[in-house]
């Protein structure tokens, strides 16, 4: 490379820094960047832990709203905002997004795209956040498209369609940027889709690879689907994965097989539904998989965060992947090989009596859904569902929430109609069972519960842990809460007036620590009084 080219590269790099662009190095070092929040899980290991400690257990009782941004858009706000160079980037439901001034919460730009009237949806129109690279933001839209926006203006740079929404595909996931690619999943298993994980070139939007989560004929795993049931096999990928740069592996969980509650049309284990996948980041090739719930008939998606922790297990240091599955068990896997390390039930479980040495559940008979109904625990939403989790290296604890209780599962055979529900029946609540919840702190090396904070309702929001010894979470009834991360004792709360469905983030701006969450239809930034 000659001197002119070197000089040009240096000038471009300087320009990128000056313009506040996010490069690969910034993403790789996101854990050390106190002034930003650059990806869904804060770092590639999906820890959602910030070392910021200005707000701590001693003073959190004095934090108060610094600003509130009312979006004016109704729906489920499940977003993880991104923060960079004085700007917050927030996605909302129904294809809305905003850039906000970090000092005041004032709107800098607003992006919106209509949701098609004929879009089949199972679960509302939420969106879980942006990804960022260079001066571009990336988000999915409900109609299964991926869009790149100019971070300065919100203008569309490119947009690509991942799948035909008329067939039941939709999208809500926050993308993950890895090696210059934008990695996204897809939703639609409730409509008999056949799902995938995609990687797109961040510059052009061209698709670089696709991994089908239900293998086709001739591919390993297709033999686990009876007949042509693989065509409608589902295995959605609607929650963001994690990434290990040393192994160059992307970890991504998959959802239920279709139809959800009727296993008869799809005899076999139904790979790779309800599984953790380890994919080569450059090619999308499968390196290993682990299936948590073979031949699932209870809609127990494996969509909980795959969190990467180096931890001692049975006296051995392990590069682990931990995951609180919807089927009621907390798992630890070796993230290099996929080896099963252990599983522990964290809520009431009546369908499995432990695991084999390979991690396959030992089934208790009589838990298959029937027309008359079968009482099974946990209920359909889990156990722990999709809500963001947190690992604090300060306490050494892993935090996640749990929906506690049982449901009656009714099964029934139905034919497949493209673009329509393909569920195989539904769940029914148990009379007198209030369906409560909890926030749990677990030792990731053993699965031992250290503390439990009881919730009167199933949980709604994700977790954030901080260097101030705090755990932030929200509730369906609208409370935004700070708990002592060591013992779960509540230290501060605010009734926000709307359900808290989003995980909180934190960052430092002009020397002051802020904690921000979405609640109801608003975004609220908290800080200590000046």
């Amino acid at each position, binding site marked *: 490379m000659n001197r002119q080219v070197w000089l040009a590269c240096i000038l471009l790099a300087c320009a990128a820094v000056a313009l506040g662009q996010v490069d690969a190095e910034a993403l790789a070092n996101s854990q050390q960047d106190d002034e930003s929040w650059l990806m869904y899980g804060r770092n590639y290991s999906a820890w959602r832990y910030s070392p910021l400690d200005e707000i701590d257990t001693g003073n959190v009782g004095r934090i108060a709203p610094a600003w509130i941004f009312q979006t004016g858009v109704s729906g489920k706000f499940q977003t993880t905002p991104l923060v960079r160079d004085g700007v917050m980037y927030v996605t909302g439901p129904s294809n809305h997004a905003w850039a906000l001034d970090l000092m005041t919460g004032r709107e800098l730009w607003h992006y919106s795209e209509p949701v098609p009237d*004929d879009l*089949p949806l199972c679960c509302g129109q939420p969106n879980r956040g942006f990804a960022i690279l260079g001066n571009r933001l990336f988000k999915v839209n409900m109609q299964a498209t991926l869009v790149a926006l100019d971070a300065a203006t919100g203008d569309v740079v490119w947009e690509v369609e991942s799948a035909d929404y008329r067939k039941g595909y939709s999208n809500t996931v926050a993308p993950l940027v890895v090696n210059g690619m934008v990695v996204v999943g897809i939703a639609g298993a409730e409509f008999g889709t056949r799902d995938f994980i995609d990687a797109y070139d961040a510059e052009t939007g061209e698709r670089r690879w696709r991994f089908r989560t239900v293998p086709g004929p001739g591919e390993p795993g297709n033999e686990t689907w009876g007949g042509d049931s693989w065509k409608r096999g589902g295995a959605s990928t609607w929650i963001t994965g994690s990434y290990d740069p040393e192994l160059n592996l992307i970890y991504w969980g998959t959802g239920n097989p279709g139809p959800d509650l009727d296993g008869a049309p799809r005899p076999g284990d139904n790979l790779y539904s309800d599984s953790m996948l380890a994919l080569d980041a450059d090619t999308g090739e499968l390196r290993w998989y682990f299936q948590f719930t073979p031949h699932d008939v209870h809609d127990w998606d494996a969509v909980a965060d795959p969190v990467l922790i180096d931890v001692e297990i049975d006296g051995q240091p392990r590069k682990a992947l931990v995951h609180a599955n919807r089927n009621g068990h907390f798992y630890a896997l070796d993230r290099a090989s996929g080896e099963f390390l252990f599983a522990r039930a964290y809520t009431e479980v009546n369908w499995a009596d432990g695991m084999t040495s390979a991690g396959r559940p030992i089934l208790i008979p009589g838990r298959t859904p029937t027309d008359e*109904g079968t009482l099974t625990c946990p209920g359909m939403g889990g156990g722990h569902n999709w809500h963001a989790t947190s690992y604090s290296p300060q306490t050494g604890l892993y935090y996640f929430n749990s929906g506690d209780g049982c449901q*009656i599962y*009714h099964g*029934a*055979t*139905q*034919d*497949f*109609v*493209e673009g*329509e*529900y*393909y*569920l*195989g*029946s*539904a769940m*029914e*609540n148990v*009379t*007198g069972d*209030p369906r409560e919840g909890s926030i749990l702190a677990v030792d990731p090396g053993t699965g031992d519960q250290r503390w439990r904070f*009881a*919730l*009167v*309702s199933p949980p709604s929001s994700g977790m954030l842990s901080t260097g101030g010894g705090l755990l932030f979470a929200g*509730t369906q*009834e*609208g*409370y935004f*809460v700070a708990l002592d991360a060591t013992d779960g004792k*509540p230290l501060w*709360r605010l009734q926000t007036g709307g359900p808290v469905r989003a995980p909180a983030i934190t960052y430092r701006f002009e020397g002051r620590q802020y904690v921000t969450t979405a609640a109801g239809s608003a975004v609220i930034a908290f800080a200590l009084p000046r």
Partner: protein
Amino acid sequence: MRWWVLTLLVSLAVAAAGQELERSPFHGDETSIGVGKATFRLRCSACHGIHAEGGKGPPLNRGDFAAGNRDVDIYRVIARGVPGTEMPAYGSRSTEENIWRIVAFLRTFEPVGEERVDGDAERGEAIFWGAGGCGGCHKVGRRGGSYGPDLTRIGRSRSVDHLREALLDPNEDLPAGYFMVKVVTRDGRTISGIGSGIDDFSAQLRDASGKLHSFLREDVESIEREFTSAMPTGYGESLSDQQQRDLLAYMQGLRGEESR
């Protein structure tokens, strides 16, 4: 007929006719009925029962519908909801085709007509406002108490079986928002009432006199949510079988018209 051919034809028909269709185009089509059943179970069964036998909502398996017995009547109720009841409008949440599939599913039940109670509604009304003491807690129209659920339209929204169960075993299936809250204060007093709200940090309740109480968990000894009804048990013993039937006949006739 292949499902997609049928769907195409139906889509064209629905597009051409809008809601002018009188009859579900999916009548007798097993595939469409299966989808309708799945959608019913997902969206409707929490109130109308997993087998459409009724529950918090009226039974839909008897071939007799409060808003009319033509397919289009059922379609309109699903699409537009029933104002003044818990029945929401699904028109903006579901395609026209899928609503017609639900209608086709509901038409698979053999019509047996509305269950009529062998009782005298006038005598039941007298029991309601007299010996039964029901009016002390329940409102019908503008008359009655407000401690329990308003029964002005209860005959439209509950099956007879559900009303009978509510009368004889009120703890079996509590109406939404009618759980009990028991608070024990630091000085040992117990205050109970119907919970207006409860969360992880507070509870609000109305006692039997209608007085509102609000507590923070940190200020009291305990707050417990109890899934029992404030309605007294024992009507199975205090009312004769005939009196029960009379009372049920009265309640079955409460459909939101001018209260007597």
